């Protein structure tokens, strides 16, 4: 049985209530909840983070219980710190602050607990390492932009980092909270030099913010405020911090590409004010050493004057001094959206400002010029920047794949069909009155046609292998409609491919208008023969299973050829008598045509050729017991020429298969009167051969009468 998120949350909520109401149950409840931290559902993870925050901030627990729980919670917290969720991460930082304090003191007092110390360091690393990035957000396309992104996590992380620095360095002044001095100097885990060095590097990292070329008040101001706290506790850092402040000047900073000039001017004002408050605060607490006194006093004075000056003016109004403001060199992309607006390459790849597109079609340049341009660009581009650009394009591509339908719909809704796009592309001289034609398709060369036909053949044979669900034949209408609606393919069936392929070979490759002896026609019949050969090979692969196929094909072959030749012959006759008809010598043209036509035999050379080929090919492979399929073939072929019948002779003289041969002849004599003469001829010939003499004479006696 699986529980829904709601069930689990309800259960957790009840446990929480029990824990907060009964302190004796609390540790047990917390440990149970820790099992849910790794639940797949983000809602449950979030619930756990909220719960843990409340637990460690509450006063319900005994100190010793809290320390135990802090130790037990570390692993879950490390896990949660790597969950990509801002709300959870914010909670994690707050929980980590309490846990760090509790566990650090525990290790200080309990030398030898390597595992606990290792986990604490892992937790510390997991958090402090995230300060310079934008975790849990993904980095953007531009480092400069990232300085303004996810300030929330950074502001929260500053708290944690300050706690670490506080705990990992000794305090000279009297403090009533933990002081690193109290740790046994020979502690096997807490090595003073190492932890102090680490703390110093964390502080250096914080102070690096002052060296950024851009100003980010929501980040720099909270650092300044936390420094006021740190300076009171750690006089060893005073010089370092004041040196940084001394060298810091908001008016030397650059305007970011991600802030307006008004925002930049306000930023300078806001940071200046906090520095001023900070310095006056330090003066009040006598935290500025003698050698910094004069420079700091001067700085305060400058800031006060600057503040008064600003007060007199409207800061957001343009001022002549604005000209002195310099901007950071832009290294990002103007169009960095990871969502494409339409399913067009233009939108997929364009990283430039859309409103500022060069009205120039690069595709008009010769390829070699383009190649040179690309090579030069590739050599000049910074690897990191290229990667960022490719990241954006790949994200867009993913988005397009995931939202294909939506993007298509959007196009329809906006009426963005292709014609509109063309207009967008800058075709300004579009004339609605003139008629535009697509360029005629390029004629395929014979070689290309051959390739296409071969591809078509392969595709059709592939189709023959697929299984198609049979569709039940709809009840046919009676009467004349029945004939009118008669078509070869009503539904796509298993054998439909054959109908199309054979018709392509026959009717598809020539028309009545084409000249029989033209080059085109010859070429086309060559293409037809490609299909015919393929069909024959296909049949020969398995004659027993594919006999139906060959019958159908040869029937189509005969039928289409007969119709074609009949029409052609009639046209020729008509042409012959046309003049006489026009001069009045003949009154009934149709009668005359039919009269002449009746006298003629319509030849079917293609059918003859291929039916002979088929028989010649299969007869050597027939076995004594292939009676059924062979007789079937002989009975279902539309026409049997004397040559075809003659082929049976070879069977009759074969001692093993003579029975099959004579049986076939007997069948034809009985059921196909048009070939009776041909059969009798064959029998006569056989009667002159010793081995078949007896059987032949028997049949001759019976049928020649």
């Amino acid at each position, binding site marked *: 049985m699986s529980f829904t998120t709601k069930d689990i949350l309800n259960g957790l909520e009840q446990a929480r209530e029990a824990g907060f109401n009964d302190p004796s149950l609390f540790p047990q409840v917390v440990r149970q909840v820790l099992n849910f931290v790794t639940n797949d559902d983000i809602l449950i993870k979030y619930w756990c983070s909220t719960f843990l925050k409340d637990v460690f901030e509450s006063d319900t627990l005994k100190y010793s219980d809290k320390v135990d729980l802090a130790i037990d919670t570390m692993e879950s917290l490390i896990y949660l710190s790597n969950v990509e969720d801002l709300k959870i991460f914010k909670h994690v930082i707050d929980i980590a602050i309490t846990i760090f304090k509790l566990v650090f003191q525990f290790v200080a007092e309990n030398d030898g607990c390597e595992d606990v110390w290792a986990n604490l360091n892992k937790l510390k690393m997991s958090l402090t390492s995230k300060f310079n990035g934008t975790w849990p957000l993904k980095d953007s396309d531009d480092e400069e932009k990232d300085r303004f992104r996810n300030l929330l996590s950074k502001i929260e992380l500053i708290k944690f980092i300050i706690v670490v620095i506080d705990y990992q360095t000794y305090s000279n002044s009297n403090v009533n909270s933990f002081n690193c001095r109290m740790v046994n100097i020979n502690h096997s885990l807490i090595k003073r030099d190492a932890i102090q060095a680490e703390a110093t590097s964390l502080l250096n990292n914080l102070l690096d913010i002052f060296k950024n070329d851009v100003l980010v008040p929501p980040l720099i101001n909270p650092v300044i*405020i936390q420094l006021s706290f740190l300076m009171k506790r750690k006089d060893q850092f005073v010089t370092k911090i004041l040196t940084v402040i001394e060298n810091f000047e908001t008016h030397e900073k650059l305007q970011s590409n991600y802030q307006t000039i008004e925002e930049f001017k306000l930023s300078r004002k806001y940071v200046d004010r906090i520095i001023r408050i900070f310095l006056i605060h330090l003066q009040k607490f006598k935290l500025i050493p003698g050698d910094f006194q004069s420079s700091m006093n001067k700085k305060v004075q400058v800031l006060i004057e600057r503040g008064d000056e600003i007060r007199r003016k409207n800061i957001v109004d343009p001022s002549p001094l604005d000209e002195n403001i310099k901007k950071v060199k832009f290294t990002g992309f103007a169009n960095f959206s990871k969502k494409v607006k339409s399913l067009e390459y233009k939108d997929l790849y364009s990283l430039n400002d859309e409103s500022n597109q060069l009205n120039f079609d690069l595709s008009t340049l010769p390829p070699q010029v383009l190649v040179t341009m690309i090579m030069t660009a590739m050599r000049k581009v910074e690897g990191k920047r290229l990667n960022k650009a490719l990241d954006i394009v790949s994200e867009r591509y993913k988005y397009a794949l995931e939202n294909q339908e939506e993007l298509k719909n959007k196009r329809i809704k906006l009426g963005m069909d292709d014609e509109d796009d063309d207009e967008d592309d800058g075709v300004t001289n579009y004339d609605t009155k003139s008629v535009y034609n697509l360029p005629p398709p390029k004629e395929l060369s014979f070689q290309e046609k051959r390739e296409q036909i071969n591809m078509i053949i392969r595709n059709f044979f592939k189709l023959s292998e697929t299984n198609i669900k049979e569709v039940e034949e709809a009840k046919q209408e009676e009467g004349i409609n029945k004939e009118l609606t008669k078509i070869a393919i009503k539904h796509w069936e298993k054998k439909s491919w054959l109908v199309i392929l054979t018709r392509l070979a026959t009717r598809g490759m020539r028309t009545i208008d084409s000249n029989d002896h033209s080059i085109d026609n010859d070429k086309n019949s060559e293409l037809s023969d490609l299909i015919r050969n393929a069909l024959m090979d296909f049949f020969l692969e398995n004659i027993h299973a594919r006999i139906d196929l060959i019958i159908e094909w040869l029937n189509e072959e005969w039928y289409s050829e007969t119709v074609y030749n009949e029409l052609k012959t009639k046209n020729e006759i008509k042409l012959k008598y046309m003049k006489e008809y026009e001069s009045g010598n003949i009154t009934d043209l149709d009668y005359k045509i039919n009269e002449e036509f009746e006298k003629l035999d319509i030849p079917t050379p293609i059918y003859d050729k291929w039916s002979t080929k088929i028989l010649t090919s299969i007869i050597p492979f027939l076995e004594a017991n292939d009676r059924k399929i062979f007789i079937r073939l002989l009975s279902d072929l539309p026409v049997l020429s004397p040559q075809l019948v003659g082929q049976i002779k070879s069977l009759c003289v074969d001692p093993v298969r003579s029975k099959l041969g004579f049986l076939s002849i007997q069948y034809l004599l009985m059921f196909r009167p048009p070939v009776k003469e041909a059969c009798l001829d064959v029998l006569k010939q056989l009667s002159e051969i010793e081995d078949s003499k007896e059987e032949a004479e028997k049949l001759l006696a019976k049928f020649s009468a």
Partner: protein
Amino acid sequence: MSETIVKSEVKVPDSLKICTVCAANNNRSMEAHRQLRDAGYNINSFGTGNSVRLPGPSVDKPNVYEFGTPYEEILNDLMSQNNRKTYEANGLLHMLNRNRQVKTAPEKWHLNSYAGKFDLVITCEERCFDSVVDDLMYRLGKGQSENEVSKIVHVINIDIKDDNENAIIGGNGIVELVNMIHEFRRNNKKEVDDPSENILEDQMMKILTEWQKNHSHLQTIYTVAYY
């Protein structure tokens, strides 16, 4: 003539915990307090001065009260003085009459730990802003138990001239800014290209710049601090 305090009801369900701060917690912070309360926000107000100083019969003779002295009491005291006409003319009586309908007494910022932690502190004078930030620096690490973790607070100064009319104009501006911040927080459920667009701390400078452009006469200062 005791009038009951209009019970402050938080009608904005997602209201941040806000407070307004001026020197005496009488004029600017109280006008903004009233307006924000009427708009339904969770609002308190404080003063950063050493004591409550109100205009007296002359510039060198102000009326001085301790923080915590009820507005009603101050009003009665002023009414009992000979200069009642002056106080009526300069709006002092009107102001106190309004105040006693908002809350009982002026409160001192530095002693406000009983009120809990605020998400948004709006000061009405640069001096008060300095005082609040200085105090927040002082509070860091002081008197905090090991359990206590400081939280983020946004401190904004909106410079308002200390008179009746400007207090009302300033109050309007404050309500507008508070609305903008809450509107942003409500909108941030929507899906955006970059999640940063939904983070208040990332967008606060943009919000303030926009507001400042429309209120050039109300100059601002802003910082993120810890509480």
